[in-house]
């Protein structure tokens, strides 16, 4: 009669996705933020296409980081506020699997969605189509890593009333390598040089956080639950 770990994982994932789609405004806000911020740059800068193209990777990545951060605050907060986090912690499944499922669900509705709309932004920033694949791959790896870093920060700040600023202060410094290698990979793809090095480093960071961050986030959450 007992429920296996994978079953519990998919149950929480389904629950999170269903909750997200019941609240389309929360789903769309970070995406619209990403689109608007990146559109402001071509409007505010000079019309020189070469300048825009030079700045595009940095603009794209900073906007992606900030818009991912927007939704991170709610990762555990709503569950903590209405008492469901306690129920999840006592569900007999270990908090780890629940944290993993919740973070992956968060990435699917924020990071993955951001990757899907990034070609629109790429076009607005005059990034050549040939660089789209690298741009999307690097954004995918980067946002997944960021979701994991954010899960640790969200776990630590869930008990605070205005934790979102602190959350940014915790997560953004940790996200600097992502910005450097992510923007680097996109930059190299635009200039047509090899992107392998930057992508490998991004992938390594992604593996590192995917394997270690669940433990850190669970520990952080457990402290807050007390």
């Amino acid at each position, binding site marked *: *009669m007992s*429920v296996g770990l994978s079953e519990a994982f998919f149950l929480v994932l389904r*629950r999170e996705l*269903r909750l997200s789609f019941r609240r389309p405004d929360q789903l769309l806000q970070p995406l619209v933020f990403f689109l608007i911020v990146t559109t402001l740059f071509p409007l505010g800068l000079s019309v020189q296409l070469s300048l825009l193209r030079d700045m595009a990777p940095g603009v794209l990545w900073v906007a992606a980081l900030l818009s991912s951060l927007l939704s991170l605050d709610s990762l555990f907060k709503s569950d903590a506020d*209405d008492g469901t986090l306690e*129920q999840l912690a*006592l569900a007999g499944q270990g908090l780890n699997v629940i944290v993993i499922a919740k973070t992956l669900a968060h990435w699917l509705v924020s990071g993955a969605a951001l990757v899907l709309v990034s070609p629109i932004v790429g076009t607005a920033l005059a990034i050549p189509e040939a660089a789209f694949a690298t741009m999307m791959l690097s954004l995918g790896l980067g946002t997944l890593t960021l979701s994991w870093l954010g899960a640790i920060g969200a776990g630590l700040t869930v008990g605070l009333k205005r934790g979102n600023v602190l959350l940014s202060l915790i997560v953004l410094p940790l996200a600097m390598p992502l910005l450097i290698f992510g923007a680097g990979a996109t930059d190299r793809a635009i200039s047509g040089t090899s992107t392998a090095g930057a992508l490998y480093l991004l992938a390594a960071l992604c593996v590192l956080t995917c394997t270690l961050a669940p433990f850190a986030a669970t520990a952080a959450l457990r402290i807050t639950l007390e």
Partner: protein
Amino acid sequence: MNIAADGLCVEKVHVWRGDRHVLKNVSLQVRAGELVHVSGPNGTGKTTLLRVVSGLLRPEQGTVAWRGKSIASSPTDYQSELAYASHEAALKGDLTAIENLRFMVGLKRRVTLSELQACLARVGVAECADLPARVLSAGQRRRVAMARVLAFRASLWLLDEPFTNLDASGSQLMSALLEEHIDKGGLAVVVAHHDLNLAVPTRHLGLGG
């Protein structure tokens, strides 16, 4: 239900919250077919005690043992036999009552939709099954939370102010459910301000003098 005589045993528990010594040397024992009623003025650590017993909060000193084993040694086994209802209903407003139950109970045991509907009917809110939890009244939410406790089919119930927001018939139902659970050999720790007046073996634990 096969519960050893030494069901739940809380021994000499101390909890500090910052500088405040919230729980001072609290001990309690609950055996199968027995209910412990925890009462006391506000701020005397009733909810804290329940959180310690549930395993959410680790005491600075003292032990909580379930069937002779410390709950920290095998938390998932303990949790699978535990139903905890905090003073919040712990329902997601955007999910329907039945979805709320399905996701939360589904983590603990395999459960069918008809079983959950039966639990909702038992607590008198069958008609709320497909309504989003956010439109339910406080009393209805409390009843849905109680349906979740029933659906867990746990041996040990930890209930924090289960009578809050319930009307007269709701309170009667709550008492009946508790009596039924204890009669079947279950255990319960109930935090409540008022006397429970239940027809089952009840022990009283007063906190805060």
